């Protein structure tokens, strides 16, 4: 391995080899968001898992009517909406960080992130749509 002269010279110690700081607080806010959404998810997700899997017979009682019954209440609509958005943004931002960690090339990084953002958008839109437009009167087959 050859040592580049640049690697040895110390005569311009302050010359930037990194891009100048962007002066953006994005990483700070996303760090704070991970912690706050994590706290809320403890309640939302554990509560959700408890109701769906443990309370009164758990999964065995889940059917169309059960879901329809829950979503007729604004409380559960809000719960599920909040859980959907928080988990999606929390998990999505977590994956963004992991892509930043492991993608070696800028193009790989870009396309993986595009895939992630598209997947997030589709799930968020679809989920929100279902929660708000759910029609309990469609014939259950």
């Amino acid at each position, binding site marked *: 391995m050859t*040592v580049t002269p640049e690697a040895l010279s110390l005569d311009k*110690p302050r010359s930037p080899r*990194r891009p100048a700081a962007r*002066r*953006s607080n994005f*990483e700070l806010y996303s760090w704070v968001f991970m912690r706050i959404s994590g706290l809320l998810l403890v309640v939302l997700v554990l509560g959700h898992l408890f109701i769906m899997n443990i309370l009164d017979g758990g999964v065995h009682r889940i059917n169309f009517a059960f879901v329809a019954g829950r979503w007729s209440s604004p409380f559960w609509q809000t719960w599920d909406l909040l859980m959907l958005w928080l988990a999606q943004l929390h998990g999505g931002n977590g994956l963004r*960080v992991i892509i930043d*960690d*492991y993608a070696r090339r800028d193009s790989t990084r870009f396309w993986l992130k595009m895939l992630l953002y598209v997947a997030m958008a589709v799930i968020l839109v679809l989920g929100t749509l279902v929660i708000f437009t759910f029609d309990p009167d469609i014939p259950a087959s």
Partner: protein
Amino acid sequence: MTAVADTAHDTSQIPAPEGSVTVTVKILRFNPEVDDEPHWESYDVPALPTDRVLNLLFNIKNYVDGTLSFRRSCAHGICGSDAMQINGINRLACKVLVKDLLAKKGKQTTITVAPIKGLPTMKDLYVDMEPFFEAYRAVKPYLIAYGNEPTRERIQSQADRERFDDTTKCILCAACTSSCPVYWADGSYFGPAAIVNAHRFIFDSRDEGSEERLDILNDAEGVWRCRTTFNCTDACPRGIQVTKAIQEVKRALLFKRV
């Protein structure tokens, strides 16, 4: 990386003082002019419990294979030249005693020695430190003061000095940065050592460059990449609470207060 090329090495020339036991030193060797990738080689050498791993390396270099390459300068844990992975943990070879590595009675002791990770290995046990020092220089690790130079010394209270005492102890050995999984994956992360040395000035009451440094560390490759793994704190041979220092920089950014 895995191939074990074990041609037995003749270690009989190494002096074996009274009380010494034979230990196996397994070194991850790499000669860029010959090898495509690093490989392990084992040396059965006599060792006193009071020997340091650095002594064993020197015995191998002096009596078995003069091409074994590693850095050391002070041999007393001060210069920070000889950070390496000893039994899988980043340590200074000059500070690790053989007695702390000995296997249980009757078992053969094996000590593995590999270069620190995350920086390019140049030969055997030494790495290219330039990416490490580049990150160090990028946080402006020097006193920044504006206005007229005072005619007397810059006075500081004991409490103000105490504020950053821990991070003044850094010897830039890179044990912390090269133990950080985020740094292994993403070499543009500043890494714990750069943050420790930024901390040393950010919290210095005489310094006026805190904002600049905090801006630098607020960036995408700055403190927010830290995932609080604590590997750095475990690795630091100076006992610096590295993770705590990083956390204090995060807090200063969050609450806009130094």
